């Protein structure tokens, strides 16, 4: 039976990675200081030199999820353009979570890297 699951990123094995990654990137951005949703997206894109394009439709559900888990807190405020916007701030738990996620990401990157570099060498299976 085929049916569609309406998840945050259109469910595809590749992009499930992105789900957790988006959370991490948001937390990282907020580490630099409180910001509202639009700013966060802008910062991520800008910092990555437009390589990472944030799907804005997933942004707010992600923020909601982070808030639900107590990693960010929010409040209404005025933005640069003098518009009313909702600002998000990292909590202490969020800071801890960021460390955890960063470590996890780095160990994963390392692992993938070592596999990729190994593949260049001989394919003999050592005994």
């Amino acid at each position: 039976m085929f049916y569609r699951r309406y998840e945050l990123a259109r469910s595809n094995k590749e992009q499930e990675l992105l789900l957790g990654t988006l959370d991490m990137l948001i937390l990282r951005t907020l580490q630099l200081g409180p910001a509202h949703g639009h700013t966060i997206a802008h910062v991520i894109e800008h910092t990555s030199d437009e390589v990472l394009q944030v799907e804005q439709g997933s942004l707010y559900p992600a923020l909601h999820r982070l808030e639900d888990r107590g990693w960010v807190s929010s409040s209404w405020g005025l933005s640069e353009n003098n518009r009313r916007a909702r600002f998000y701030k990292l909590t202490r738990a969020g800071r801890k979570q960021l460390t955890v996620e960063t470590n996890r990401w780095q160990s994963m990157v390392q692992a993938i890297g070592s596999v990729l570099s190994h593949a260049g060498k001989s394919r003999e299976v050592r005994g």
Partner: protein
Amino acid sequence: MRLSRYFLRRRWDEERAGEIKAHLAHEIDDNLERGMTAEEARRHAYIRLGNPARIREQIWTMNSFSGLETFARDLRYACRQLARSRWFTLTAILTLGVGIGSIAAIFAALDAVTLEPLPFPQPDRLVAIRTVPNDTASIPTIQDWQRRSSSFQSIAAYRNWSPEVHTPLGSGGRVIEISQNFLSTLGTSVEVGQDFVQTGNERDCLQQVVLSGRLWKQFGGGADLAGTTIELDRRTFRVAGVLPVVQTIEGPYALNHPDIFVPIGCDPNVRVAERGDTDFLVLGRLRQGISIGAATADIAHAAATLQKDYPHMYGGTGIYGRPPKILPWLTVVTGTSTGPSLLVAFGACGLLLLIACANLANLMLARNVRRRHEFAVRATLGANARQLLRQVLIENAILVIAGSLTGVLLANGVIRLLREARALRVPRLDHAYVSVPVLLFVVSVACMVVIFVTFLSARRTLRPALLRDLAGHGRASEGGSLRRTGRILVAAQIAVSTVLVACASWMVASVYTLLHQPLGFSPDNLLMVGVDIQHSSALPAYNAVQAASFYRATVDALGYLPGITSVAATKNPPLGSAINQYDFCSDGHLDQCANPTVIAPDSYDITSGYFNTVGQSLLKGRDFTDADNAGSPVVIVNQVLAEREWPGMSAIGHRIRTGELNGWATVVGVVGNVRSYSLEAAPGPDLYLPMTYAPPTHMVFLLRTAGDPSPYMEMVRRLIQSQHRDLLFYHLRTMRQEMNSEVELRSFLMQVAAVFGVLSLALSILGVYGLLAYEVSLRRKEVGIRIALGSSRPEIVRLVLRQESRWVLAGAAIGLIAATVSGYALRSQIYGVRENSLTVLGASLVLLMIPALIAIAVPARQVAHSDSLLALRTE
């Protein structure tokens, strides 16, 4: 944290809306800075963000318990849909209610009667020992069984006794005579006072009784028995002990909640210690680990040794000729045929429920197909098959729950009816009520019904061919499998109904046959009045002459009453279930006279004119006259006895020897056979003697009246009582009443079976009609074409009839085969099954086919007479 989100989600949603608006504003600002026009800026901003509504929806979902919410929504939707098709919903709930209610009621009865254990320790060890064919045994026999076998921990005896009871409360009370080990065999003991000591010898009968706790409570209760006495037959008995209040002893006849327990031997009118006085019923407790089969073999061995030691008593075709059989005590308490009958009823209810479910599935099939448009729209909007199935499941679940509730209410009512049905006489039925096990049973049945019905009716409708269904096409060319399923369901219903109708008809035929078969005498307008003259002013001490003259005088006096055509008296009337056997032999088989055994025939002491009064035909010889005296005794035999003793010869003039006279007598007449034992038992050998030889202490007067006998009852009583005020009357009824009470249970079961038959028939015909109405509606276009092409309307009707009756007939044929099998399985319950079967099966077939054919013809006629132009244009 989640919970607070749930309650505040509306506010959250508002905030989110604001947030998204702000986001868009920021994006538009950025775009404007990048140099786009206002129009483009806005468009790009929206494209970038996506659908704001969907974002809000996602967040809303994250704040909700989505599963529950979907469920609640589906529930509301289902209720709305059901409310829209009111007739369907009502029919479904009622059919389910009837099916589930009936099966729940029978289950409650089964639970109370057969499943609940008896209130004694280790009740599965309790058994009844029954001799074949009379069930009863004598005290010395019972004691020998115990001595000569090793399977029993103890064997006890009991017997009914009906003395005049006088207690501090007044008169009346149920008395049972029990052996000394009766209470200990059961496993109960007295709570207050002590059990009695008794040796079985009437001379040692100590005037003691044990009371039931219930009766003792009515006396006032308490722990002090000092000096409490009761009177039985004008003799005083001391209350020695009292059973616990909660101890219930229930069973048929003597065991029906007895209040007064008397040691055996206290009835001075009946001898106890004689081996031949077989009057006692037997209760035994098996030893641990002994099965009933092993015990039966053991006791058969013991009986065989008894036969060797006392050949006259136990030999040959005598009373003890065959080994005794052992039954579980529970079977005795509830009645030997109750368990199987209830199981049959359970089966019938199961069948009824099956029909109800099949009907429901059919109705749903038709309904689901009509709703294909709705399903197609939902599928287009994004629902998948699982969601559609869930909706259908919820609808069906609502129907089944409503049906189950109706069913439980119905079951309650039915149980109450069953409890009050006197005819059933099932002792433990008053324990039955809608208890927790019954409710659990209902729930599990309901679950099975839901699953069965849903999957039967939902197979294809949930994968709609979207385009076709949305456009509304596709109704005329419905999937063949769908219509086939419907037909199979209805054919199955017809088969099941045939079985139920056949069984009901068999029972009706049984009762009819029993009541209208030739009995050998004429039962109409026959009044019976039994009089016991012992110990009364008519017979203070036994005196043969006095007794005989009383009976003769009473017969004469009764004959003068207006409206009484003829009068006679007999010790036991026809259909009286009496066994009076003495040792017997005839000059046709002189070898038997060397070792006379107690053997059939049954003896009847009668006054002269008996055969004329009762309507029994005198075939040869003569009736008794007043001249017949004991000097040269004469007897009359019936045809069965005559043919047994003197085959091919005339019985007149032959001689017989009977233990009743302790001598020989001459046969002077041969009469026709009557059913002397019961309506079901075929006539056996009977022997008639003039009552003057050994006048009994009680006889039954038979009066042939001019019209309905009931009004004469009072008159007869008054006349008999006018001379002797202290006579005891018994057996006051008309012969028709006797016959009706004998078939009372059967009649009751017949009514129940008839209800089942009618219900199943109605359901099936409804099913046929429903299916046909739906079928012909599908074929309107085809019919329109046929009419336009020149078919006549009757031809169309005939065409439909021909096509549709094929599977109806198939169902009926299968049903007939199943009915025949059932008839064979139930043949012991149905009286006269051999003679009635063909009629019954034929009638059942007709009863089913005619309404079914009408149910096919009516919709066919409707569609054939519809406007052909309209039919052609309709989709």
